[in-house]
């Protein structure tokens, strides 16, 4: 009798842990989509593009507008949204960052500019759509599939699968293509990259295009999973940034792993802390990593040959 209770409690605890880990993976996959684009842009451009957060939110609202309001079919909406996100990112680079760089602006100035862009467009969205939350509701909130005591909704499974596919494609692109290799080269040693003939502006263009397209995908998934509100970009950006710092901000696979770890830490943390502490967990991790391990878990040691 006693033994039975023990095992059933143990089983429950394990199921609870498993559920938290699964929830962490799902949260983490959205953070990872934000973080991978962010760190792709950071690693090739070396400045903090915090306006990346607005690419995510703008994509979410784009889905709401095109699909829920205008009534364009969902898959068409997704394609348009990803393309427009990429162009939006490129426009930020070409119309704001690059002209500033040409005037000799430091990376701190570019960081301030990026916060300006973020704030500006958050307010534009508020004026256009109002400050109330918006719901896309494409996939009905279904009851979820329960397996071995762990429940996942269809939407969550879709989110997980889509993001994993995207990360595999991104990795292949970075490792196997000429452009991917050029991007790694710029990130490793940008001066030498120019010396061997790599056109830095072209690489920046591509990093903003791809990074912002990833933000577009993140925005679509966020729109499906959560309510949209104009100022959610700041929080998403902080989470993506934290994930990137944990894994290694200069190294795209690192930032992906870090984001999954962050998602799991948040969801495991609220097993023992009140759920309002989710953000506090993220902030504490950000703080500790910046302080003690600024290169992150997988961030490459410089390993450079300095003569």
């Amino acid at each position, binding site marked *: 009798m006693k033994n039975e209770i023990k095992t059933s409690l143990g089983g429950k605890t394990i199921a609870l842990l498993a559920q938290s880990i699964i929830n962490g993976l799902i949260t983490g996959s959205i953070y990872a989509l934000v973080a991978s684009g962010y760190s792709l842009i950071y690693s090739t451009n070396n400045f903090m593009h915090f306006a990346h957060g607005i690419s995510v939110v703008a994509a979410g609202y784009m889905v709401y507008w095109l699909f829920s309001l205008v009534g364009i079919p969902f898959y068409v909406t997704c394609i348009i949204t990803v393309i427009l996100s990429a162009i939006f990112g490129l426009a930020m680079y070409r119309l704001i960052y690059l002209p500033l760089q040409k005037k000799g602006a430091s990376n701190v100035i570019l960081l301030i500019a990026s916060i300006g862009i973020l704030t500006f467009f958050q307010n534009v969205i508020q004026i256009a759509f109002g400050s109330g939350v918006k719901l896309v509701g494409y996939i009905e909130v279904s009851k979820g599939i329960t397996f071995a005591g762990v429940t996942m909704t269809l939407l969550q499974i879709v989110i997980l699968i889509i993001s994993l596919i995207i990360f595999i494609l991104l990795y292949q692109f970075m490792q196997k293509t000429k452009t991917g290799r050029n991007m790694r080269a710029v990130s490793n*040693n940008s001066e030498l990259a120019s*010396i*061997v003939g790599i056109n830095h502006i072209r690489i920046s263009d591509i990093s903003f295009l791809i990074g912002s397209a990833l933000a577009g995908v993140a925005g679509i998934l966020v729109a499906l999973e959560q309510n949209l509100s104009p100022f959610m970009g700041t929080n998403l950006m902080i989470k993506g940034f934290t994930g990137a710092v944990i894994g290694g901000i200069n190294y795209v696979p690192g930032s992906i792993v870090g984001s999954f770890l962050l998602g799991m830490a948040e969801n495991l943390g609220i097993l023992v802390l009140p759920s309002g502490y989710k953000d506090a967990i993220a902030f504490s991790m950000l703080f500790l990593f910046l302080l003690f391990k600024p290169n992150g878990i997988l961030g490459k040691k410089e390993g450079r040959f*300095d003569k």
Partner: protein
Amino acid sequence: MLDIKDLHSGYGELRVLKGIDIEVGENEIVALIGPNGAGKSTVIKSVFNISDVTSGNITFKGQDITSLKTHEIIKLGISYLNQGKINFTNLTVRENLTIGADQIFDPGTVQDGLEKVYTKFPDLKTKENELAYTLSGGQQQMLALGRSLMQRPSLLLMDEPSLGLSPKLQQELFATIASLRDEGISMLIVEQNAKKAIELADRTYLLEDGNVVLEGGKEILENEAIRNVYLGGRY
């Protein structure tokens, strides 16, 4: 083939070169010597348009290249072996070698070049899939030189290629450099060892504080100023 006329150049507000004239002829090895901070690297950076040229002219094979972009200059057949971080440490040896040639040639030409470099430096072949930071100092230098050669330059700009190498490796490097001339490559070499530089080069320029203060062939080894200042001490 390279003709630098009255070049003023620097970084932002900082004026480094104060009107210098330097010439590199067809199939010639020209050395650039001088104390730290004299502006030797800045000469090369100016040719490659990665410093701020304020006035003067740089022509290559008769074409004005003063304001061409770096990647356009490379296409004309100039390659630059820099000082400092000379390789992409987190890329493989093979990626390091092909990356420069890839920017200007088709895959077949790149593959040809790769095989030639592997014949010249067999060590690199055995390490082809290792990340560059795992190489020794001498191998790093080979890797950087190999990458430059794969761009098939007719003019090679080298910034202190012998720095950090053992005397034996330096000897090998100078032999390699001499053999490159036989392959028809002209060179402008910055070298901290003045004696070695003068012996190696057809002509040598001495740069001090952004000005050319002396120019000549091997006879300047006998020059009083050179003997006292450069051949006695560190140089």
